[in-house]
């Protein structure tokens, strides 16, 4: 139905696409470690050697773990398997709260202790009006 040239051009595009998809897949797979924006406390626990460079740790702020003394904030980041203590001095974003997502940027002191220089609040995918949230909370 179609000419030989048309079929060849179709094949050409298909081969380019397959090659590109495979290449991209391989690159992204090998870059896995660096594509992630933050590590979870479990990943920190399983590190064979402590990273001296600036890293990011993310997870949930553990319930009842925030303590503020003068200008220092202490809290625990958890992924519900492992936890890490975070110390930070400075202003926190308004959405920073217990039981909510957080990403801390800073340096590891050891596997259980993280000194943050920047705190980012991670927003989740839930969007609802306050009334609905209250109704959900009562259940």
């Amino acid at each position, binding site marked *: 139905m179609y000419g030989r040239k048309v079929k060849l051009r179709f094949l050409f595009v298909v081969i380019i696409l397959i090659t590109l998809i495979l290449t991209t897949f391989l690159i992204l797979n090998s870059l896995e470690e660096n594509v992630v924006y933050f590590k979870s406390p479990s990943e920190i626990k399983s590190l064979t050697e402590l990273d001296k460079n600036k890293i990011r740790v993310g997870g949930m702020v553990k319930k009842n773990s925030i303590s503020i003394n003068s200008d220092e904030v202490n809290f625990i980041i958890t992924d519900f398997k492992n936890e890490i203590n975070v110390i930070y001095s400075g202003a926190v974003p*308004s959405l*920073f709260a217990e039981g909510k997502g957080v990403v801390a940027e800073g340096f590891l002191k050891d596997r259980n202790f993280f000194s943050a220089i920047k705190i980012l609040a991670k927003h*989740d995918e839930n969007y609802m009006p*306050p009334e609905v949230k209250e109704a959900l909370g009562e259940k």
Partner: protein
Amino acid sequence: MLKLLEPNKIFQITSKAPKYVLLLFIIVLSIGLVEALILSPEDYKQSDAVRIMYVHVPAAWISLGIFSSITLLSISGFIFKNKNFFLISKSLAPSGFVFNLIALVTGSIWGKPTWGTWWAWDARITSMLILALFYLMYLIAWRIYDSEEKVYKISTFITIIGIINVPIIKYSVDWWNTLHQPASINIMTKNSIHSSMLYPLFIMTAAFALFSLLIFLMKYNTELIKIKNKGLDRL
């Protein structure tokens, strides 16, 4: 069907349609803005900052949709040697680029009060920036090359490489830890966005789609005039 593709027939549509599309766009945008800015509720956590989403999300959707469309059209144009497909792609690209920039800028404005930063090099945000660069390459390619044969091939090649990035943008939030939240609107599973926020979002998407259509018709009309001036009567 083939009759419809006659330049004169298309020209009649593209020269008259914009004013009606503009009218429709203004109506839908007004409804959308009233819904998004006044009638829709504030969010339980981010309060009024949620309203930025009604611009951010539709803009991102449209920019992804347009890039996918120009890729499909360019590839079809390349395979079947159809000049018209390339001209449609060329006319679609500018509004896709503009919405891509709008998505990046509104995301940045939303990020400061919620995340606490204007910019993060996370997978979603970076891949969206890469899409903007592909749009830019595509648009520049059309300006650089005078030879039609050359520009058709090069622009097609740019879209083929760029389209690999589109699924990466979509799934980046699921594949990797990102600062950007995962999708709230899912076809297969339950939406995690309340319906009172969903309707304004869809109306705004319709408004932005109409704006893209408007810009497309105007650009495409110009392309057709160029062809007419060259004295060609077939696409």
